[in-house]
């Protein structure tokens, strides 16, 4: 079963093509990684799918229904949530209020405050931030703000979760805990699209990986295949001269 189908997605910023004819399917209950060098279009891809930007061309289908260009808030209610690479907590609100908002306005649309607080607390426990619940979000460290970002996205009860570099600034142990969390979330029935620069983390956790380069899809497949793909190595490390002409 496919949850998301992307067809020929293209996004221009002025004359620059940030995404060009990108097509792929996301099967349900998988963790799909997206990698690529800086500026490859990973974040743009996420922004176009989640409604922050309108695509210049192409189609996005959720459960077979066209959701191209739909606004972010409606997509959240349909079960698509995202985190931001550059964290955007509501700094003048407490940690639990940040998450509570997502419970109120997410897919579950909980109205009662007490019930919303309970759900919010559960989400905070998942990222082990429950002990910081009554503090202002501005007091959190960067690593904690990244986890808060994840907790908020989880609190919307998504079917499809798009995570944009959630491990940046986390320690090794925290990254390990985050990977375990992703597995648990997936077991709970949520499909995950995951952008990360930490290769060890992404290779360990993903079922499939898609590689982007200069806004185009370069390769797609299982982590071990991607690791050995010549075009991917070339994109990251440059062309190999071995076997060509000898060095002078």
């Amino acid at each position: 079963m496919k949850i998301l189908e992307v067809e020929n997605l293209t996004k221009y910023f002025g004359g620059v093509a940030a995404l060009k004819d990108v097509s792929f399917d996301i099967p349900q209950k998988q963790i799909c990684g997206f990698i690529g060098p800086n500026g490859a279009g990973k974040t743009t891809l996420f922004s176009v799918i989640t409604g922050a930007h309108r695509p210049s061309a192409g189609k996005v289908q959720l459960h077979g229904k066209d959701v191209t260009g739909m606004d972010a808030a409606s997509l959240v209610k349909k079960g698509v949530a995202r985190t931001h690479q550059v964290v955007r907590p509501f700094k003048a609100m407490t940690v639990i209020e940040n998450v509570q908002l997502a419970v109120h306005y997410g897919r579950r649309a909980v109205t009662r405050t007490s019930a919303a607080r309970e759900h919010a607390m559960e989400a905070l426990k998942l990222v082990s931030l429950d002990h910081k619940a009554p503090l202002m979000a501005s007091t959190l460290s960067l690593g904690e703000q990244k986890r808060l970002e994840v907790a908020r996205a989880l609190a919307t009860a998504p079917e499809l979760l798009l995570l944009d570099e959630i491990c940046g600034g986390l320690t090794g142990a925290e990254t390990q805990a985050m990977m375990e969390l992703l597995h648990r979330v997936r077991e709970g029935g949520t499909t995950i699209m995951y952008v990360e620069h930490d290769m060890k983390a992404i290779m360990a956790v993903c079922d499939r990986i898609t590689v982007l380069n200069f806004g185009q899809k370069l390769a797609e497949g299982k982590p071990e295949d991607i690791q050995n793909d010549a075009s991917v190595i070339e994109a990251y490390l440059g062309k190999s001269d071995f076997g060509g002409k000898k060095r002078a």
Partner: protein
Amino acid sequence: MTLPQNLSGWLKLVLPWLLFVALLLLPVTSPSDNVIRLLFLTAVYSTAGLGWNLLGGMAGQVSFGFAVFFGLGSYTTALLMHAGHSPYFGFVGGAAIAMLASFFIGLPTFRLRGPYFVIATIGVTEAVRVIMNNLEITGGASGYRIIEDKPFNPLEHYYTAIVAVALAVLVSAIIANSKFGLALRAIKQDQDAAADLGVNPYTSKLWIHAIAAGLTGIAGGIYARRAGFFYPGDVFAFQTGINILLIPVIGGVGTIWGPVLGGVIFIIVEETISAKYQDFHLLIYGALLMLIVLVEPGGLIKSKRLWAGMGRLLVGLFTGTTWKALFALLQKLLRKLRFLKPQRIEGKT
């Protein structure tokens, strides 16, 4: 509802009711007509300020165009009363028309953000004023007169205004503690991040704009009925919109009681200073605004200095420290002016 745990929680719960009852019982002490008039104006302007505060304070959308709703409230109430309806029906009608207008204004302008939205609201309010200046059925620029066939009763006006401001405080408190209030605070901080959690910033702004417009419309209607005569250059004036914005800014943007305090201060300034110095009363507001933004950007209601100072002053009046401090201040002043010998400082020759 949960009961408060500490003293300040209890105070917050009880004080508003005490204030409300005190204001309702005030006429028993047969105060002068002028006191009643000042309290009436304070209540009316606070109501409008509380309305503005919902959109400008809670949702962070600064509008210079609230004179439109104030004026529409005035004219709608007057026209409905002229058609033979009760003034109270007129107030409700004024609120309804103001809300309707808020959608017409909000649908295009809420597509704009930040300063662009602010500029658009200035354009709208000026356009509406020009239209009203030239509209035949409301008498154009020469204004409109409300004629009631019963004798003028200042207390009825007073009670109406007090109930209106209580309503505005109640609405503000309910919204502030609801999930809608939480969403508005999120929109104020980062509307894209709010959208990523399922909040629709556009419709949320439209709704809070409508509620704000409704309260401002009621205030306009109550004001117009007491004034008896009003014209577009008064109720639709750009200055009216500025005044409505100034009140929450003085008192405390985004707080529930800030606009009420702001209304009290606004009327005091308006009556004592601006009435005497017509030529530069805008200068006074400008200076006041700058002072508040520089010294207490959160508004006076959040000013720890102010409340602590007032507390010390009150306690000091009984314990004598206030008098001592005043005496010391006087001494210092007199020394500076060389009326007293300068104090000798030990160790210096």
